[in-house]
């Protein structure tokens, strides 16, 4: 448990100060740059807040597709990290899709939609119809 205020709180405060106090003082030519900074901070804050949940959910979906026991409890092998297991199964999925083994497969389609929606929740929640507290 990090000391408080934690990273998420600090990023949100910093972002608020950037947008509300600093940005209006910037010359017009620098405002787009400041908005990019604010956007990067929002993504980082959402990522921190979500922690390893999106990764574990993605792994669980991949493991279900491939009948691996790992599922919700993490990677199949205790030394394999979640991100490594996702990479390993994603390579397999990517290569099977390319090879024509999964043409139009509804289960795969749902998994891909789910994965993309979960990445969008971090980068652009509005794209999946969610309110975005970071943009408030």
């Amino acid at each position, binding site marked *: 448990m990090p000391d408080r205020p934690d990273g998420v709180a600090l990023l949100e405060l910093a972002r608020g100060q950037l947008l509300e106090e600093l940005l209006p003082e910037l010359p017009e030519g620098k405002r787009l740059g400041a908005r990019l900074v604010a956007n990067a901070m929002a993504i980082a804050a959402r990522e921190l807040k979500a922690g390893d949940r999106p990764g574990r959910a993605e792994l669980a979906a991949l493991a279900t597709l491939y009948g691996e026991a790992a599922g919700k409890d993490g990677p199949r092998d205790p030394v394999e990290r979640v991100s490594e297991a996702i990479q390993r199964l994603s390579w397999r999925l990517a290569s099977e899709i390319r090879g024509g083994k999964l043409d139009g497969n509804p289960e795969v389609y749902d998994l891909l939609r789910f994965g993309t929606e979960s990445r969008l929740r971090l980068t*652009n929640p509005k794209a999946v119809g969610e309110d975005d507290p970071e943009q408030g």
Partner: protein
Amino acid sequence: MSPTFAAERLAELRPRLAAFLAESAGAKHARLDAITPITEGAIQENWLTEITFDGGAFDGLQVLVLRSDAPTGVAASHSRAREFALLRAAWDADVTVPEPLWLCEDEAVIGKPFFVMRRVEGVARGYEVVKDTGLGGDRAALAGRLGEELAKIHRIMPPRAELDFLELPEPDPARHAVTLYRKYLDAMGEPCPGLEWGLRWCELHAPPPGEITLVHQDFRSGNYMVDARGLVAVLDWEFCAWGDPMSDLGWFCAKCWRYSRPDLEAGGIAPREPFYRAYEQASGRKVDPDAVAFWEVMAHLRWAVVARQQGARTLAGGQPSLDLALTGRIYPPELEYEALKMTPPARWRAA
């Protein structure tokens, strides 16, 4: 922003640049009154120059644009020499472009190749053009004009000696694109099952190969310039290739280039109808809606691959750039999501 023409180098460059300009313009002398960066694009840099020529056809004060390469390039972008040749071909085909004037491939002049073209004035930023209906004049007329411009581009057919740097025409451009984007994905070394889904759909549903013409490959809102009355210039010629003319219509209409007006399917500025009608009239070629729909799926995949490449450039020890990093992080999932929505299982023909 870190201009690669460091200010201190300018003093050193001015005399050589002025001498090149004078010789190119057939003037006795040229004085470089001002040189300032306009934009620092991902791929090239543009500099606004004010030059006073003494004698020759350009006698007097001229405001010209100097265009050079950015420090690092994206795969599939042409060097300035090639872009100059493309701009010249477009100019000769009566496409509305800034007149290309002189090319300098001698790196002794400013340290890298560049070309000089006339300045055009207006607004190009896609979100602004789409949102501000005070720009570009009547929107249906603007869409029609763009259809005509595209028809003129598509009148340029292979073979063309001055464009011999373009890869030989592929008989099947759609399947060739699938192969190419897979190669780009492989080179980045990250698994992308969502994009693979889209590419496999494209492989199975590619339109039958047809006529091959020059294709602009980045003809969209954001890459043409307008003023209050209408079109001023078609820009960004660096991705040109021989290909399926319908691919440019699909790129122009793709949802990812409609900005704040997804309901206006021709580039966020108008319905498809005036754009298609003007294109058909000017080109004598029927618009194939199925082929355009196919190329709209491909447009999302292609832009997703390019956005990933741009993001990768900030990771691979290239220029650190928040802009590129955000491009590589934000756009791919949005584009992939759209491509998935266009290719649900019901839209797969039985293989």
